[in-house]
């Protein structure tokens, strides 16, 4: 059982308040949609939860079996898929997957990579440089990377951005799978993406 506990979280950039007093708790099998207008701090909330920004107030704690995880453990059990997460354009999809698997301390075989790429509809494109990918294909590759990392806490920012109908269905299946076995947090403005989550956290501007 995994748990994400956010308590009294607030973030300011200088004098500008982004959000304040955000609290929620999610356990394995629960998912949350963070919604709000542009500039309301959805992305900042996700990146603060992932320790990319220090919160101005409050804290974010990750638990596994009621044991608080340290920074290294959090890094190995979380993953983010977002339009602003870029992979290496001058590496192939396979090289990207192998690299991120190794630095995350995971082993992956050629067959494993083929299977991951097939799951996101990128079969036979593994040897192409990511530079040659469309934005939708790059988004699919990020989901392959998420599947590779098998995160216990999956963070998604605009999960279906740049995807065609086929891509949306693939992502929908992945989110369905991870909602059962992980904690999923989704930042979105798209009404149909609210349905991916069991709870909603609304941020106001």
């Amino acid at each position: 059982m995994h748990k994400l506990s956010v308590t009294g979280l607030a973030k300011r950039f200088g004098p500008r308040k982004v959000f304040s007093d955000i609290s929620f708790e999610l356990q394995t099998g629960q998912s949350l949609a963070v919604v709000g207008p542009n500039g309301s701090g959805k992305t900042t909330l996700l990146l603060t939860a992932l320790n990319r920004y220090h919160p101005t107030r409050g804290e974010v704690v990750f638990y596994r079996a009621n044991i608080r995880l340290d920074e290294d453990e959090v890094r190995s059990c979380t993953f983010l898929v977002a339009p602003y997460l870029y992979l290496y354009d001058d590496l192939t999809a396979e090289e990207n997957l192998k690299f991120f698997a190794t630095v995350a301390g995971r082993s992956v075989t050629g067959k494993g990579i083929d299977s991951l790429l097939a799951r996101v509809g990128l079969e036979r494109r593994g040897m192409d440089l990511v530079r040659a990918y469309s934005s939708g294909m790059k988004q699919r590759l990020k989901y392959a990377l998420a599947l590779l990392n098998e995160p216990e806490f999956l963070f998604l920012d605009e999960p279906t951005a740049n995807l065609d109908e086929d891509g949306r269905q693939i992502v929908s299946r992945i989110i369905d799978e991870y909602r059962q076995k992980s904690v999923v947090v989704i930042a979105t403005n798209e009404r149909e993406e609210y349905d991916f989550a069991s709870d909603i956290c609304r941020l106001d501007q």
Partner: protein
Amino acid sequence: MPQTSAGLISRAFAVYAKDLRLELRSRYGLNTLLMFSITTLAVVSYSLGQSGLSPKLLSAIFWIIMFFSSIAGLAQVFIREEEAGTSLALRLTADPNAVYLGKLFFNLTLLFIMMVIITPLFFIFMDVPVDNVLLFALMVLLAVIALCAATTLVAAIIARAAVKGTLFAVVAFPIIVVPLMVLVGGGAKVFSGGSIGDVSSELQLLVAYSGVMVTASILLFKYVWQE
């Protein structure tokens, strides 16, 4: 996918191998280093002529070229991550120490290749008489380590700044001035025909400086890298 017990070194090697692969495909970093150093060397050689320069002046010219060439090229290792937007993925997945060590080894490789090409060219262009080539080679090797030890952390600090190139030179200079002065003094002794006994204190200082800089960088990098 199963988790492995891949240690720090294998993760650092993955970062190093990735950077090396990207460099082989673009050759941006090495070309920057070589372009700057060869151009400067040619201009200096043409302006000052080939003979009559004192060992101290020769040594100063050599190490100043090396310093500014490394300033021009070594920051790329982090700037490239920031400009391509890949640093977020790296921060979210990789151990900061593995990132630092991988980048340090990459910079060492880059600067070592530059030194291997530029040092013989300097000797030819400037007609430098060196009796003890191996001793000078040892000094160059220690200089590569000291320069990279000092500049890799600075490169991470300035990578997200708006005026990266200028800031890198300004921030790196106070840190690097100590080994630079030592190298100028030691190089002059070698060019004057000095033996290893004459430059032992310089060599020891370079080793100690590199050790301190790498240790401090490993301790500090996590805080520089995370936000």
